[in-house]
């Protein structure tokens, strides 16, 4: 009998049977749970393409064994938009052409969401560049990525203030 873990994935609580203890979170999502939006670029934590949020923190899912995640809350690129409404980071990526081929994009966006919630970069481009440097983009859409993260940060702060008011 294979062990089972409980995960909340994109808001949905699920019991996940683990057929193999070697399975990483990345391969669990992609190959077993039909969530291939998260991408594999290096499988050893060097490129950031597989970035997801685990309990709100950005992690490289390729370096995370699924078996260690019992009870965790996972957010992937598929779960970021609210229905038809894009997350501000997603919208800013389109508007600022912050991607070309789109392969690193799910990781970039999840990393940006994590960075913004960490709150250490604000809209300072230098800090954003540093904070986003765990995510390689070979098409080199970095110019647009930096502007998109700046713009999304400002939009989210503005929305928070409006909500608070």
């Amino acid at each position, binding site marked *: 009998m294979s062990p089972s873990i409980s995960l909340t994935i994109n808001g949905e609580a699920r019991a996940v049977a683990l057929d193999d203890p070697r399975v990483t979170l990345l391969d669990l999502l992609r190959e077993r749970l039909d969530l291939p939006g998260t991408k594999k670029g290096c499988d050893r934590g060097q490129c950031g393409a597989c970035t997801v949020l685990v309990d709100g923190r950005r992690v490289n899912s390729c370096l995370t064994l699924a078996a260690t995640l019992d009870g965790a809350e996972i957010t992937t690129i*598929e779960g970021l938009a609210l229905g038809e409404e*894009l997350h501000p980071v997603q919208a800013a990526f389109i508007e600022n052409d912050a991607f070309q*081929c*789109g392969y690193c*994009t799910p990781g970039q966006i999840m990393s940006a969401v994590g960075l913004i919630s960490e709150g250490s970069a604000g809209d300072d481009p*230098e800090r954003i*560049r540093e904070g986003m440097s*765990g995510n390689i983009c070979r098409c080199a859409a970095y110019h647009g990525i930096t502007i998109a993260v700046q713009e999304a940060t400002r939009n989210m702060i503005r929305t928070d203030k409006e909500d608070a008011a």
Partner: protein
Amino acid sequence: MPDTLDPHVRFGSNSGQPVTRRDGLAKVTGTATFAADNTPDNMLYAVFVPAAIARGRVTGLDTEAAAAHPGVTHVLTPQNRPPLQGDPSDKPTMFSFRFEALQDDSVRYAGQPIALVVAETLEAANEGARLLNPKYERLTPRTDIDDAEPYAFEAAGFGLPANTVHGNPEAGHASAAQAIDVTYETAPQYHNAMETHAVVAKWEGDHLTLDMPSQAISMSCAGFAYYFGIPAENVTVRSPYLGGGFGSKAIPTGPYVLAILAARMTGRPVKMMLTRQQMFGPVGHRGQTRQRLRLGADDTGRLTVIDHEGIAATSTFDDFVEPAANASQGIYAAGALRSTHRAVKLDIGTPGPMRAPGEASGSAVLECALDELAEKLGLDPLELRLKNYAETEPGTGKPYSSKALRECYAQGAERFGWNSRPRAPGQMRDEDGLLVGWGMGTAFFPCPMFMAEANATLRADSTAVVETSAVDMGQGAWTALAQIAADSLGLPLDKVDFQAGRSGLPDGGVAGGSGHTATAGGALHAAGGDVIRQLGEIAAADPDSPLYGAGNAGFVARDGRLYVAGDESRSEAYTDILARSGGAEIAGNGSASRAPETAEQHAMNAHGAVFAEVKIDPDLCQMRVTRLVGAFAAGRIINPRLAESQLFGGMIWGISFALHEEARHDHKRGHIVNADLAGYHVPVNADVSGLDVITVHEEDPYVNALGIKGVGEIGITGTVGAIGNAIWHATGKRVRRFPIRIEDLLTS
């Protein structure tokens, strides 16, 4: 810019607009389906075992241990591999390279596939591959460019001439008042698209379906059909999204063939996705070069000769050679030009085309050598280039189809502030005490066209479907080509259903050579034009149409209406024309290529000028590019937003070439020691700031019907030299190899 090009096309309705990517929503929500995102029922996973040695043969594999691992279903080795119908050493298409598909036990380079493990899960396949534990008979590997004798040959790159001479180089050397003779080296580079090569292969009888990234869909079908002995139309390739290509995904490779073979053998779909480490070997790279440049000039700085010799590494079993020295042809008005190439056969995977093949490596060295000459002549580097500005193509005397390079120099220099540059090196420091240097280089890229075909069908409700097997590897084909198609049909973008990215459509040609928008776009433009021509004929012959009898005047198609050219008071909606004619659809087709006589009449190139600022820590010698201004003239820009992204991307590849990328071999054992993204450096976000792109207006009536020159590759050229020259300007040190490393500045 005139707003009409062909009579029926009004450019500016869609083309020329900075619309966001039509595939943007899919890409930011994770619903864009890349090859390895497909997981059909009953699928198996395949993993190949890469050779750990660079030369010799495999003497043992523990196939029993691998086969015994739970989940492993098959282990393929040269002993039991089913036959292929086409020889892996044959070249069935223009984009064919010889490859390894377990045809024997020899090892020709490190990373070569030597066995294949197939399993129910990826984890089992990986463990099975590890358990094979290969044993080898090793021969001394030759991986250093000095390990073999250079030899002369006929063709470099894809059939480019290996030796080109214009004028009398010896006379040019003899008459030079000032001369330099310098040798530079460029490193082996690996494409490393973020999506590694991947395929999901499925057989149904003798029909093969491949989900795989392909820059050349028709040629991929033809290639795989050859190796598997089936007609090309039996191969379906689906390539809606490529996670980057950069030249490496145009060619059928050994790993793909093995995965397809495994699918045929097992009767089940098979997925194979290369690991990042496996990208360093069987899927191409930019070959290492050593280039000698001898330049001569008279006292005023006019070039008497550019004499460019390239030596490039290639594999022992194939012949692609980086055509670096050809970058010196066609750009500066020297009295004589000579480009020669020789190759060195090493125990490495075969190099292939990588973004700006030849031009990137060659222009890097040419632009640095010119800077060295400017220093010797006491001239500003930009002044030297202007003194040798070519009004017609050097050597051939052909007129340029268009050339706004002078404007690129002027606009780039002004934006950068080049005029305040001190001529001598080591003069500038910033407020933090960092050394500051400024350098420049000329950017240059040819405008090839390939062959493409397209269909367009206008429906009764004034929507249309257009079809061509074009591919989007990030350059924006889904968007820019749809803009062209919409204009050709006189329809808004959202009325056009653009079908591309798979076989079974008219041949969209090759996404490469910066020629895809011009070629596939040209075919779409022609197909739309064919539809509008037919529509005009129907209307002009219909007494009930306001356009009746106006056929000779011609029509303008815009926003779903036909207008009489020169008399906009007469017009009619497509829907009305079609309703009266019985509501039938109108189907048109078109193709695009460049007629040989057109190519003979003009030299066709995109041009640009790149200006770089670097800052260097005087103690640590850490180098940073702090500003990079590129001004490019590349004909008509279909989508400024996407074109800017392409140019930024190319310039960052220039930063990468100048300062980051290098595959390093352990010459004793022959393998690449930094074969992953931790060791093989490419720029990250923190490496990139202060980028600025100017697109210089340029109209070109000759290059193709749409006036497009292409923007995919030119950004690298010029940039590498500009950065190298800026480093000299900051430090006074000439580093004659790329990438330039901290130790080069510490020790030279």
